[in-house]
């Protein structure tokens, strides 16, 4: 079974600053995928970024990037130049071919103007 742990229930960041959200996971699979999802008050889960476990290069999507440490089973999300619209719940999630998408408990990010 896969497990995903997010140890930061809440985080805050000043507008235009950088923040890093932490995530660790555990899996016995060799082929798996990791994701960060954003859930604003509108409730819809929005895919922010994905990482394929067999790729060593860290994924980047505009202001969002990850630090994927496979040996440590760590997958943190860095948000640069934070904007007010980044305020939301952020969920780390993992998937492999044998298991469904599994989520962490989430981190609530506040952006201070």
């Amino acid at each position, binding site marked *: 079974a896969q497990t995903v742990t997010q140890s930061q229930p809440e985080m805050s960041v000043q507008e235009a600053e950088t923040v890093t959200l932490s995530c660790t996971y555990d899996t016995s699979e060799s082929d798996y*995928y990791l994701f960060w999802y954003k859930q604003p008050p509108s*409730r819809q889960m929005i*895919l922010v970024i*994905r990482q*394929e476990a067999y790729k060593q290069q860290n994924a980047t999507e505009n202001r969002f990037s990850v630090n994927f440490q496979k040996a440590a089973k760590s997958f943190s999300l860095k948000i640069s130049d934070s904007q007010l619209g980044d305020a939301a719940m952020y*969920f780390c999630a993992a998937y492999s*071919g044998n298991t*469904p*998408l599994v989520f962490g*408990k989430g981190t609530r990010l506040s952006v201070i103007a």
Partner: protein
Amino acid sequence: DAGVTQSPTHLIKTRGQQVTLRCSPKSGHDTVSWYQQALGQGPQFIFQYYEEEERQRGNFPDRFSGHQFPNYSSELNVNALLLGDSALYLCASTPWTPNYGYTFGSGTRLTVV
């Protein structure tokens, strides 16, 4: 291109009643998964449907059942509602190999009184 649509958006039911939630997947997706998200928590996997059959199931009682239709749309049924069933129910669709992530609907907020 319509994404995942869920209906209804909100629902209030009385303890002991039965409820049916509906989901239409994103165009081109043939696999539907259902999640339960309690307030302040991460989504918990209920089950997944592909080719009109339940393929995987999470740790939920038999009161939770589902169905997938030939057009890939899906229903989630919950019998004998308990107060603890109050939650946001999310539907997600994917191709059978969801390596690019799940696409979520905005959810149905179920309140059991």
